[in-house]
C-alpha cells in the first residue's frame, strides 16, 4: 500500500498545504489533550493532599 512514500508526501503538489493543515490540527489538539490531562493529574494530587490534611490541618 506504500509503494511510493514520496508521492504520498507530495500529495499531488499540495503536500505543504495538506501536511501543515494536519500538523496544525494535531498540534493544537495534542497540546489541548496534554494540558487537559496534566491539569487533571495535578489537581487530583492536590485533592489527595488536601483530603489528607483535612479536616483539622491547614494544607499550607
Amino acid at each position, binding site marked *: 500500500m506504500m509503494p511510493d512514500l514520496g508521492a504520498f508526501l507530495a500529495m*499531488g503538489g*499540495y503536500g505543504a*498545504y495538506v501536511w501543515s493543515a494536519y500538523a496544525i490540527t494535531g498540534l*493544537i*489538539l495534542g497540546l*489541548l489533550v496534554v494540558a487537559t490531562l496534566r491539569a487533571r493529574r495535578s*489537581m487530583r494530587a492536590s*485533592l489527595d493532599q*488536601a483530603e489528607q*490534611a483535612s479536616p483539622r490541618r491547614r494544607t499550607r
Partner: protein
Amino acid sequence: MAKALHRLANPARFLRIASPLLPWIAAGAAVCSGAGLWFGLVDSPPDYQQGDAARIMYVHVPAAWNALAGYAGLAIASAVALVWRHPLALVAARCIAPVGACFTVIAIATGSIWGHPMWGTWWVWDARLTSVVVLLFLYLGYIALLQAFDEQETGERAATVLALIGAVNLPVIKFSVDWWNTLHQPASILRFGGPSIDPAMLLPLMLMAGGFTLLFAYLVIIRMQTELARRRVMALRRAALAVSQPNDA
C-alpha cells in the same frame, strides 16, 4: 456546610456516571479518527477539481462543525444554569468554552491553509469566514469575562448572562453577515463541492467528524472532573482555614 455538601451531590453522581465512560469515549475517538485518517489520507481518491488539497476537508469541516456545536452546547448549558440553577451546568459551560475555542482556531487555520491554493489568498472577508471569526470572539469574550473576577461564582454568573445575550444575538449576527456579504460581495470565491460528495469522501469525513466529536466530549468531561476536583480542594482548604488560627492577634 450541609448546603455545600448538597451542592456536591449532583456533581458526585455525574462523576460516578461519567468516569467509567471515559475510556470508551477515548477509544471511540481514537478508532474513529484513526480510521478517518487512513481513509482520508491514503485510501480515498483525490478530488477531481481540487486534487489532494481536498484532503484538508477531513480536518477542516469536522473542526468547524464542532466549533459551532460547541457554542450551542455552551448556550444551552448557560440557559440551564440560569433557569434551573443546576450547578453542573455552570461547570459544563465553563469547560466547553476553551475546547470550543480551540476547535474554532483549527477551523480557521485549516480553512486559511486550504484557501491559499484554492482562492489564491489566505483570507477573504466572506460571510462564512467572518462569522467564524465572530464566533471565536464570542468564545474568547466568554472566557475573558469568566476569568475576570476574583470570585469565581461572580465570574460564572456574569459569563452566563453574556452567553445568553450572545446566543440570542448569534442568529441575528449570522443572518446579518450573510446578508451583508451577498449585498456587497460578488467576490471571486471559488465555491467547492456542493451537496453531492463522493461517498469515498463522505466516509472519512463522517469518521473524522465522529472522532472529533468524541474527542470534544472526552476533553470536556476531563475538564469537568478537574474543575470539580478543584472546587473540592478549595472547599477543603477554606474549611481548614476556618478551623485553625493559631498566630492571629
